[in-house]
């Protein structure tokens, strides 16, 4: 599904040029659950942003589903993104002014799904995430674990082929964290490819494979058994 070769990304200020990704190459196959680990500043978030088509690389190639997307313009990237990729963030990033239902509905509105269909699909996914009883609440009225379940519901409502998770348990206690990891594992078992950035060895153990980064390039890959 994802084939990245010699990927480069620089951050420039007036005087210093920082290399975030240095000729990085990785591959993620369809149906895989991959964890990316490494110390702060190693480039793992940058990599996730590029994979998520939120940021463009300065060099190298990025093939997504057999298409070279490294030089896609903003519109093409947005289009590809909204149909194929779901995001889960550490800080949930729910919209405060929208109810649980409306938050989850948002991606369907942007992909142009008809209203009746939207209700059906949102209810289906809320049910699956066991958050249906909170559908008319606002995010501030939910616990952290509940908020993350809503965020995951929102990420999967469009049935994306790929879910990108940036420290999904970073703001949660361990029991809520485990619950979220179980959810991701379930999704993966149902066929969704997952790429997750994490600091937690515990969470990483849910994945099939760990990619360890240091200073912008791969230093090790662990296959989980």
């Amino acid at each position, binding site marked *: 599904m994802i084939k990245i070769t010699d990927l480069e990304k620089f951050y420039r200020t007036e005087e210093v040029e920082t290399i975030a990704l240095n000729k990085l190459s990785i591959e993620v196959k369809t149906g895989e659950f991959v964890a990316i680990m490494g110390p702060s500043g190693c480039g793992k*978030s940058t990599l996730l942003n590029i994979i998520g088509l939120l940021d463009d690389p300065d060099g190298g190639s990025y093939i997504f589903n057999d298409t070279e997307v490294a030089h896609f313009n903003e519109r093409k990237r*947005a289009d590809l993104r909204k149909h194929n990729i779901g995001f889960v963030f550490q800080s949930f990033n729910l919209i405060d002014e929208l109810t649980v239902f409306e938050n989850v509905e948002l991606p369907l509105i*942007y992909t142009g799904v008809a209203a009746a269909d939207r209700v059906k699909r949102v209810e289906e996914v809320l049910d699956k995430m066991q958050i249906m009883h909170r559908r008319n609440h606002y995010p501030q009225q939910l616990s952290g674990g509940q908020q993350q379940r809503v965020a995951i519901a929102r990420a999967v409502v469009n049935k994306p082929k790929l879910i990108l998770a940036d420290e999904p348990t970073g703001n949660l206690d361990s029991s809520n964290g485990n619950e979220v990891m179980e959810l991701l594992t379930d999704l993966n078992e149902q066929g969704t490819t997952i790429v997750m950035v994490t600091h937690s060895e515990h969470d990483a153990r849910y994945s099939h494979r760990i990619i360890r980064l240091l200073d912008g390039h791969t230093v090790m890959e662990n296959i989980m058994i």
Partner: protein
Amino acid sequence: MFISNLLITLRSLRKNKVYSLINIVGLSAGLAACLLVAAIVIDELSYDKQWTKADRIYRTISVNNRVKGSDRFPLTFTGLGPSLKKDFPEVEDYCRMSVIGDRLKIGANSDGVAVKNLMAEASVWNFLDFKVTEGNPKKYIEGYANLIITEKFKQEHFKGQDPVGKIYYTIPEWGSPQQYLVTGVVKELPLNTHLRADVISITKYRPTDDELAKEEYGTFSTQYLLLKPGTDVNKFTAKVNNWYTKFTAPNKPGYSYLFQPFKDVYLKSDFSEAQPVHGSMRNIYIFSAVAVLLLVIACFNFMTLTTSRVFSRMQETGVRKVLGASKRQLIIRYITESVLFFCLAFVLAGLLYKVFVPYIETYMGHQLVFSAYNASFIVAAIIAVLAVSILTGIYPAWYLSQPQPITILRNQLPSGSQLNWLKKTLVVGQFVISIGIIIATLVVHYQLNYISKIDLGFDKNNLVKLEYSSWGNSGERFKQQLKQLPGIESVSITSWSPGIGAVNMSTEIPVPGQTAKIVVNHMRGDADLPAVLKVKLKSGRVFSPDLRTDNINGDSLNQLQLDGVKGKIRDSVLNSRPVIVTEYTAKLLNVKLNEKAKSVEGIPVGIISDFHNESLHFGMKPCVIDADKSNNGYILIRLKPNHPANSLTAINTLLKSIYPDKPFLYEWVGDVIDAQYKNEAKLKQLFFCFSMLIVFLSCLGLFGLITFNIQQRVKEIGIRKVLGASVAGIATMLSTDFVKLVILALAIAAPLAGYLMTQWLQDFAYRITLNWWIFGLAGLIAILIAVITISFQAIKAALANPVKSLRSE
């Protein structure tokens, strides 16, 4: 999508109460002011457009060719209309008409009812559209002045009666009562006409009035012409003046004529101060400019406040983008928000309009015919509001849709430098306007203050004026009996009273050593006038009640038909009667005491200190008081400072015992003098209200900017505090930038306002000089207001716990 946008906007409105309140209050105040001003402007522009023949009606205007630079005046020889109709095929009809004050003897009050009477010829039916509801008033009934009343007038004064066919009398200030035969009732007369009146009277002119004298003498009247369709008025004007030149030959014509469109009479008659109902184009411009300024300021505020929320909006924008929202969708979302804000504000503005219209009507002095509550205006206003809201919303919408989704992942703030620059410009703009109007308000205030403190040369306090009237043979008795009343110091019958303008007679006299002639004002007064006015005698004497020469009755002498030698004797008596002159006159015209002088038409027996017989808009002019014991004129009554409270009642009782039919028409001279500055006092009110509103709105804008600025510097403030900065230090640091902006605004506003107010002051012969401290004071006021506004947010930010702001990183 739209519904969802609407919903989310309403929720965020509720969530951010302070922001929403400020924004909506600002917008609705701006829009309400705009609505009110629009109503005034539309009302002013509507005058005299409602008549079906308005396009073809013209008022005749005379231009005096004899005096260089003389202004136009809206009166022409009474015979002009008939002559033009006879000789020019373009003229369909003429009508001599004007609105006069009248007093009808109806109702219980012995003083009758004061009415504004549109006195016209029967041809008025051909000019103006009146809807007859009773009687057949179009048929003129000979032998009487025909009176046509309105339904409202009938309701008010003839409830349950049928006045049609009955005769009513006037209570005249002069001469004998006039008879009016009520011939009909018409529907209401419009308010938006310069011929605003309560009743119409139809009179017939004598055949001699219709004659035009080629020697150019005769009476003047206000006349209107109805021209045939398709007449080119410029060609017509040229043709008339050509004809008139031939008509007066071999003499050069003393007058030429202009024809003023009926629709222009209300707004474009600055040359005719005496026209009772008139507006001014200048006011329309001032009003419109103010309305636009207010709207601009309100929109600036909306932009500043909305963009200031970019930080709290960034997360939402980012998430939406990650989830696939296009820029267009986001822009639409924020524009929806802007439209919603404007719509809410518009509804509130509509309510505010309703509340404030009565005040505006009081201010204008008449009811507005135009109401904003009419379908086409509301539709137009809604379209305008939508357009403005979209225009205003575009920039914030574009800006808010900018953040890349990546920023929410990085927790990074967009660079605000470009935005800051724009906002600073907006704030400087707002404060230029604010400081400008503060300066204007101060200048108007100090000028009026200055004027009220100028020594007029006479004592305006405790002075009562009885309206000009013919006091007949009982005049002297009335005067003497008035003097007997307790509380009354002195009484005078005079042709002049303070506040009526210069005088009612003047001569043009060449001045030694100057080429241009100057105007010398003459007033006639009895021996008591100087004492009543309390002017100071500098040398010579005042008139004496005992000297025959000081007590000539000029009016009765003039009325005698004297020819030949007798006429010459009369003239020489009149030209050598005692006069009193002011110091200024004596010096300017070089007249000596007790030497007969042609320039003052008499023998100066006394010189008095200067006094201002005109408003202070005008400079000092030569002024002469002729000794005259006439029975016609104003009665000026000087009351003692501690006069009894019922003095006026006592005067009235005495008046009624001698003149049972005369109404008691009095005014305090102090009030009359103040009324001369009515326009300026109103301008002061207007500036004061607008300056409050403009300053208030500008403060909202400033509040938005400081909020934005502090949000951007939260981290910096946190670090400074950790390193030991004091609250005062941080508040000062945050305020300094803004105070600089206000000072910059002062630098721009001061010369601009200074120039405009210098122009305004030219209307006064006596005026203050624009001192630097007026600008300093305006700047100080602005800075003070700005600092108060800023300190709310600055102190809050400085007091905040630094741990909180640093942790959010």
